[in-house]
């Protein structure tokens, strides 16, 4: 088998990074969760339009809503980060810019997830 590869290719050791399948599956599994969570999220957020802070917090603090909002936040930040990664890979071909954008996306969505989880916790435990 190795005879079919040029020795230079073997020496460089490039080729498949062998971790694309995990990304592909994570994108689909999070999509499956979001099929159910997105309709709930839209209805809930529209329902909270024009509701004051106290009542909105009380609504989100119910065990069911807090659980679903946590699930939505985790699934959607993961799905968004995976998707933006592919968009950047496809269109940005300046090496330093691509690395900078990939890191910025990873950090931005990690921070968004952490801030959202903390916020839901504060709402659930203090409303």
């Amino acid at each position, binding site marked *: 088998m190795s005879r079919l590869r040029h020795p230079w290719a073997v020496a460089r050791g490039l080729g498949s990074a062998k971790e694309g399948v995990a990304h592909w599956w994570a994108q689909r599994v999070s*999509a499956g969760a979001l099929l159910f969570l*997105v309709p709930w999220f839209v209805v809930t957020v529209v329902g909270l339009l024009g509701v*004051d802070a106290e009542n909105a917090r009380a609504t989100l603090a119910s065990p069911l809503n807090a659980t679903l909002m946590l699930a939505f936040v985790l699934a959607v930040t993961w799905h968004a980060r995976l998707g933006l990664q592919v*968009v950047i890979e496809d269109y940005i071909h300046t090496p330093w810019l691509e690395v900078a954008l990939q890191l910025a996306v990873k950090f931005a969505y990690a921070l968004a997830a952490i801030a959202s989880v903390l916020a839901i916790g504060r709402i659930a435990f203090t409303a």
Partner: protein
Amino acid sequence: MATPKRPLSPFMIGPYYRPQITSMLSIAHRATGVVNALGVLAMAWWLVALAAGGDTYARFAAVADSLPGRVALFGFAATLVYHLLNGMRHLFWDAGLGFEIPQVYRSGYAVIALAAVLTAALWYVGARIGGAA
């Protein structure tokens, strides 16, 4: 290396092809995905403001409940719903289903129609159960 003179396949957007529902919906899937990703950051902002409560949330809610705020939220709902429905189309393709061209066109038009219906329906249900109409 010299570039040989050879025919190139033209890019799908531009003067060479008529717009086709296949390529247009594919581009729309990417575009709505990017918009949704930005909306996710707005969602985090909303949750943080709601956790802070009081005046912080009152200021956020005043923007969100204004006409531009509602238009932006409706647009976010529409891009979420479109991406969800077209994403289901992609999941069927991943399973090897619906690849015949007539099926691809039918599912494409179905996604456009259902996105409009489902966005309106979710907005209606949300407004009915919520305090604001």
